[in-house]
């Protein structure tokens, strides 16, 4: 089968890759490009561990074909922190102990970033509904939601 050549931007950097027509973007990120921060929990779009942004939209990368990324902007967990340090969302996840095993965390951090870009001041219910596609089996979500709301406050320049 002929491979498809794709040029895309991941976390601001240009990438070229070859993929199969049926290959998921998740598989390319993890297996071809070595970006294993994006996790696979189900490959059916139901767990959110593979959350990325595609042109700013939150999507499960397991349901995106790698070929569809041509010319698009991809954001993964690897691009959330910067040379100057952690993103406030990451910092708040740590401070609130919002992770136990941590395998859901990359997806949740990417999803939270997408949420707060859209809605810098979400209510608890808004945060819960926006993040309902990101399963966490360890925490019961309590500390995650607290971290999200606190991160929102700190990004708005308020101290919670």
């Amino acid at each position, binding site marked *: 089968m002929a491979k498809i050549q794709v040029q895309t931007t991941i976390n601001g950097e240009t990438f070229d890759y070859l993929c199969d027509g049926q290959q998921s973007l998740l598989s390319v990120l993890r297996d071809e490009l070595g970006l294993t921060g994006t*996790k*696979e929990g189900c490959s059916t779009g139901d767990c959110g561990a593979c959350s990325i942004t595609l042109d700013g939209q939150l999507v499960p990368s397991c349901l995106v074909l790698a070929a569809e990324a041509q010319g698009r902007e991809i954001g*993964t967990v690897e691009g959330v922190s910067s040379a100057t340090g952690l993103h406030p969302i990451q910092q708040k996840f740590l401070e609130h102990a919002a992770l136990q095993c941590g395998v859901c965390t990359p997806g949740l*951090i990417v999803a939270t970033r997408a949420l707060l870009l859209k809605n810098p001041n979400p209510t608890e219910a808004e945060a819960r509904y926006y993040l309902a596609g990101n399963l966490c089996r360890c925490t019961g979500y309590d500390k995650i939601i607290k971290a999200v709301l606190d991160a929102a406050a700190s990004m708005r320049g308020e101290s919670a």
Partner: protein
Amino acid sequence: MSNQNGSGSDRKFKVVGTRPIRHDGLDKVTGRANYGADLALPGMLQGAILRSPHAHARIKKLDVSKALAMPGVKAIVTSADFPEIGSGGMAAGESHIDPKDLQANIMARGKVLYHGHAVAAVAASTIEQAREACKMITVDYEVLKPVMTLAQALAKDAPILHEGRKAVGVPPLPEGDTNIMMRLANAKGDVDAAFKGADVVVEGWYEASMAHQGYIEPHATVVTTRENGQAEIWCSTQGPFAVKSMVAVTLQMDPNLIRVTPSEIGGGFGGKTTIYLEPVAVLLSRKARRPVKMVMSREEVFRATGPTSGTRIWAKLGVKKDGSFVAADTRMEFEAGGFAGSPMGAASMTLYAAYNIPNFRFEGLDIVVNRPKVAAYRAPGAPNAAYALETAIDELAQKLAIDPIDLRLKNAVKEGDVASYGPKYDRIGFIECLQAAKNHPQYKAPLGKNQGRGVGAGFWFNVGLQSSATVSINDDGSAVVRTGNPDIGGSRASMAITVAEELGIPVERVRPLVGDTDTVGYCDLTGGSRVTYATGMAVIEASKNVIEHLRARAATIWGCEVDAVEWRDGQAVGTNGASNNKPLSLADIAKQMAHTGGPIIASASVNPPAAGPGFGVHLCDIEVDPETGRSTVLRYLVVQDAGKAVHPSYVEGQFQGGAAQGIGWALWEEYLFDKDGKMENPGFLDYRMPVASDLPMIDTVVVEVPNPLHPYGVRGVGETPIVPPLATVGNAVSRAIGVRMHQLPMTPPRVLDAIETKKG
């Protein structure tokens, strides 16, 4: 969150009880941490497993020749590649496993016992090639009638899963072929007479469905083998040493040839205390002479790993008018899955453990059915047992018009009482938990229409087992602590806190590491709520041994006797005769290590007694929509005795996570099978685990009644939180709709049914 002290341990802690940022956190919020599926090795092949499409069938013929000829295929493994082994017990960390069953669960031999049972495995250059090749393996099955329910398994003419296998345990045992693998029974007092003297008696069948641990990270392994027989295993596991011994026994290998490196682990809850892929990957790698990676899909995880037992429990409980329990009788039927070994034993010991019941009896049956072989799941067996008993208690409270917490307080066990499983209790915190729940604002919050409040309690033993730890000092005065327990929920932070507490240095100056089976001393697995307790004890001992070195080094520097040096608040302080010396900090001594005898390093190992009982009490407020039958959890509270919370955030996290899993089990989660025994919901869409919008904040009260067995008073906390929720949630639903329900999960259709029955 709030803390309640029992009469506290008098030690004043500096670091224990604080909430530092966990040391492995940075890598986990940036995606840098490597989980099971994140490793790639040069030349690595991908493995896939062919699984049975039948729930119960005999394998008559298996032909791999076409598959072997497929492009990219490098090796194929079937049960013929596994050595034949005999039955017999093997200690595998916490539980006894029949190695023959363990092997047959990993790769079916002769018979498949559930839909999804592995029958062959392929390694190929790509995962697509491996999967394509699986399709080309031809298997000739003689399909047998599946045994899907406990009732079917116990029926007179039931098909038999394991022909020729006899039931074991307490007589009377069934004669001849049976699906009952074990029977346990025990009794105390004169139960029948006591029931006659009871004022109120409730009895009923209480059913809970088979449920999965639901860890988000599927099982994964990467294996390299060498010409000399060595196998290097990287995998997601709760117990690298357990993997080593289980691989050794299933492949009849010299354990010395096996090295297991635990990856970061994306959840386990007991489900990663056993093995599925590792021996298969070893065999594939040996044949192909290349590294082999195997990762399960979510569907495979549901169909072929975990879950925990579904149960039918008949319980009868009698009380006097004043609320004192007089007698209890229980029959517990546990689904074991395709092979013997449900947690019925633990269930029978925890069943009555929270209460003083002068006369009791129970019978427990371990029953095989054509469902996946169960694995440990958080306090295995105890939630099922507590569901029955704690629901019956709620029914009695309603009948007697007694407050449900008061009824429990009247019968609750305390220090000095004889546990139902035999011995006397030392210090325990059940009463304190009940009182804290009663005093919590949630217990007084007004309830509206269609709302109900449930109370439930739970007990778990917690275990000790073997652990070792090594603490070494760097020349800048920082420290490294190494143990063999994968960090599943913040245990690295607890280990670092412990070293910091003992040595008197900041917790950021301690680096906690998890080693592989060749670089650290033996540790039993991360499970049984044991790591902070038992491995923590090893870390305390190792730290104390380091302090002995530090005192000796200070004595060398000062030219005095060791006896004249004390270790106080992180420094060596001179006493009698040496007191004119300026105290030396850890950094001061570390700087001089080379001059005073070389590197400073010390280890310790322990095999402490079981960890001291953990009790918990939960409150749940639920609103049920009478039109749809849907339950909404409005408020939830977890009260539990932690003994001493080393890192309170992660203790609360265990409380909240266990409660959430229990809520899911009570309301939504269940295994559904069609008439042929095929699982109908092997994905997160239809196996409904709680999502963020399903739950409210989960409030916690950390009760601290110190555990006399641990120097800080620590008790295990990881498992108890899943024991009370089934009954707590069920009691809330039943009170909200005004009719008693006896079957989990309480899905909207079941709730609607119950409401209809009430209307009549």
